[in-house]
């Protein structure tokens, strides 16, 4: 029981992953000054100002852990569509969503065989999902999703087991966890873009076995079981 307890008490293990291309090369920007355009048109009464503000906040969230290693620049408005040839990185809302209805957003990353990312487009599903900017129950929080999708735009893949990580692969209406980076996310972006030797942990492709939220609850609950058992 003691061994089991220690195992479950282990704080969030790293699970972050970076994305590789078909040649096995890690995807990352070499040009660390990343521009983007926005098409704010949507049918959900999200104001242009709110959208711009959320996107800007998401870019700050990802650039903060790496200081000068990343810089984002808003370039203005553009028509939202997926296009690898327009030399624009566009964030837009898609009312005619052509992908699986369960998805709330998708980020397409253009890269060269050596892994250099040269562009991205980010589509948000307004056909199948309702959106808000304040974490309203029953609606997807815009900042929550955009922050996650910007992780993909930077080459960060899903963190499959740290449930409070920004790059955890699933979400639910009203979720706000992904607005702020978890340590797991910070390590990923630092690995890709921070100057110097890189992340402190050696586990580049780590994988935890217990999700953070489940671990917290179990860690709180198990000691009580042990105590009662002893009394009996």
């Amino acid at each position, binding site marked *: 029981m003691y061994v089991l307890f220690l195992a479950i008490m282990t704080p969030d293990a790293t699970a972050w992953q970076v994305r590789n291309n078909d040649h096995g090369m890690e995807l990352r920007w070499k040009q660390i000054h990343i521009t983007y355009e926005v098409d704010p048109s949507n049918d959900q009464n999200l104001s242009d100002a709110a959208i711009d503000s959320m996107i800007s906040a998401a870019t700050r969230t990802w650039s903060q852990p790496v200081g000068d290693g990343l810089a984002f620049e808003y370039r203005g408005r553009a028509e939202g569509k*997926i296009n690898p040839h327009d030399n624009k990185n566009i964030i837009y809302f898609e009312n005619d969503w052509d992908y699986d209805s369960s998805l709330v957003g998708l980020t397409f990353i253009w890269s060269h065989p050596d892994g250099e990312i040269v562009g991205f487009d980010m589509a948000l599903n307004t056909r199948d999902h309702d959106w808000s900017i304040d974490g309203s129950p029953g609606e997807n929080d815009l900042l929550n999703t955009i922050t996650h999708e910007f992780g993909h735009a930077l080459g960060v893949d899903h963190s499959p087991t740290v449930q409070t990580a920004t790059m955890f692969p699933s979400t639910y209406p009203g979720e706000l966890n992904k607005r702020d980076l978890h340590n797991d996310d910070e390590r990923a972006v630092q690995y890709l873009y921070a100057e110097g030797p890189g992340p402190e942990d050696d586990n580049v492709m780590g994988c935890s076995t217990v999700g953070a939220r489940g671990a917290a609850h179990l860690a709180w609950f198990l000691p009580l079981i042990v105590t009662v058992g002893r009394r009996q």
Partner: protein
Amino acid sequence: MAAIIFLLSCWLQTAQAIPPLTPMDLPKLTERAERVVMGEVLTHRMELDQDGLWTVAMVRVTETLQGDHRPAIEVRVPGGHLRDMEISVSRAPDLVPGDQVLLFLDDDRVVGFGQGAFVVTEGKAWRSLHAWAFDNPKRLDTKAGDEAYYTWLTVTEVRAVFSRASASSGHPSSVEN
């Protein structure tokens, strides 16, 4: 004991506030699928349209477990290659020529984006355990047998599920080429 029950109920209530975090199971995939097939990915080509770049894979169907049988079908997944450019989409299935696959399809799309795509090897249909989506089947080369990473169904189990379903409906469940 009362305290334990109370605490357990609190934990369960918290857990229930979060939607299920497990991937779609076989019944859910089956419910959403118009067609379920086993087959081999033969070729793929790229298509660029207003919704982006698509990989269109041609799959030779060796067995139809659900839906109308066709000897070959096309399956469209987002992303792919365009000259010297690779377009990556997280969670998109990666259908590689030569792979044996089990596919749950809605029209020409994989159900659940990547959740309905399995790579079949040694009598088992494999899918990433945590992904809620597909993972690059090429990783099977290094991860095969790593059951901490991949989950699988035996092909026998899959066939049995559809066989039972067809027996209750009176329709044949499986057509093989």
